[in-house]
């Protein structure tokens, strides 16, 4: 079976070829700049004029917009509403919702926060779409990240797609035995119930099996480990990383100085 076990989309692009650490630093640069720049338009321009073009350069624009509309925008929209209505700042009321009022200041604040969240999640999305999780982790462990830590990160990254794949197989099995999941909404909602048990239970069984499997391959061995897979790290990568780090430092100091 060919299940999609991560968000990773295998394509050939400049972004795909970058060293994983470079991309990770890029993500933190995005977050750093978005969160330290006090100007509200900064995050939005980052998203519109840097992140979106980058998704095109990485040839994952379709998948990127898909996650954006399904995950990022709803999350940001919710946050925007919450912040706009519950921030007790400002005088000038723009609109009211029962006893909650949105002022000009709270709207501006909510807007900034939401834009920052958009940048943060979409930068991570871009990283995950263009980097195979095992490549990211083998690069980081080679640089000294403890194996256990890498394992926790990688299994967290994989758990969603894995559960999704598992849910698909169980749905196929249940439909093959006459469970109608295609018709009405009510029936669909009802058919989710018989799914939850096997899904959770199956995943638990899997975790145990996996723990045994990796232990059988010497996971906790104290010996120095070598890597089968060399992740390339070029001069360009190193240069980009330094530039980005300087950028982060600059934006933090700018924030402190202003």
């Amino acid at each position: 079976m060919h299940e999609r076990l991560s968000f990773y989309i295998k394509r050939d692009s400049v972004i795909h070829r970058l060293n994983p650490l470079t991309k990770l630093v890029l993500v933190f640069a995005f977050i750093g700049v978005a969160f330290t720049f006090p100007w509200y338009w900064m995050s939005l321009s980052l998203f519109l004029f840097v992140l979106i073009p980058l998704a095109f350069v990485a040839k994952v624009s379709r998948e990127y917009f898909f996650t954006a509309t399904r995950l990022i925008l709803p999350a940001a929209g919710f946050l925007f509403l919450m912040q706009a209505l519950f921030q007790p700042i400002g005088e000038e009321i723009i609109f009211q919702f029962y006893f909650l009022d949105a002022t000009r200041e709270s709207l501006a604040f909510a807007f900034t926060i939401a834009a920052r969240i958009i940048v943060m999640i979409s930068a991570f999305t871009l990283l995950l779409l263009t980097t195979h999780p095992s490549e990211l982790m083998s690069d980081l462990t080679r640089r000294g990240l403890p194996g256990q830590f890498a394992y926790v990160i990688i299994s967290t990254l994989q758990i969603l797609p894995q559960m999704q794949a598992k849910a698909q197989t169980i749905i196929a099995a249940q439909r093959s035995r006459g469970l109608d999941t295609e018709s009405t909404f009510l029936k669909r909602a009802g058919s989710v119930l018989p799914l939850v048990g096997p899904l959770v239970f199956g995943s638990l069984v899997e975790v145990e099996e996996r723990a045994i499997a990796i232990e059988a391959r010497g996971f906790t061995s104290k010996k120095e480990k070598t890597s089968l897979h060399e992740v390339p790290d070029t001069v360009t990568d190193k240069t980009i990383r330094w530039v980005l780090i300087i950028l982060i430092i600059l934006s933090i100091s700018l924030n402190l100085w202003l």
Partner: protein
Amino acid sequence: MNININNLHFTYPTGLEALKGVSLTINAGEQVAIVGQNGAGKTTLVRHFNGLLKPTSGSVTIGDWDTTKYSVAKLASRVGYVFQNPDEQLFSRDVLTEVEFGPKNLGYTKEKIDELVKQALVWTELTDKTETNPYDLSPTWRKMVALASIIAMDTPIVIFDEPTTGQDFANVSRIANVIAELKKQGKTVITITHDIDFCAENFERVIALSNGQVLLDGTTREVLGQEEILAQTYVDPPQLTRLGKLLNLKETVINQQEFLKAIK
């Protein structure tokens, strides 16, 4: 209920064309074995029979139903499909619930459900394990649960995807018994298998697939006699058949009785 497959092509979303123009007719009540190397497209083909996959082009009809026009749940009343991997098929708390799941969905009366479930449990010798969680059973017994949960649906067509893989002799004969019982009831049985002896002993017709196409299709004797062509899809005829060839027997033999008769 006949199965008609007309120039079926199927391409996976990954771009891999797994079926490249398959045309077949399987008549009601036939016992058919499908053989062929790993990746030949056997599973892909049978997943079209119950609508889990829909043709990229061409058509599959089950009786008078075109599979593109009916949901998987609807087709389940005509085609029962035992998955290759029981772990992908079982999801209930205990064996009884698991076996009841299908017939209940098909809306049979309470009496009929009880009768079907009981019969399926007897055939698969699971009667003393009804309270057990399928996950606590050994893989071989899980396979039997998967079998029982499908035959309890009493569909006119039953598909087994590699039922004997990894099974001991006792279980293989249990499965052979189930197939014989289904045959007695006049059901169509389609079985994918890599176990060529099992195929020779239990099926009348054999279809050999290779690279998404039908390589051979005929009676078991005709197909297993074509050693060279079968080799293209890495299938070896049974040892007795090959021995018979080496002994220059006139007829192709496929089982012990025939072999003994021929060398007398």
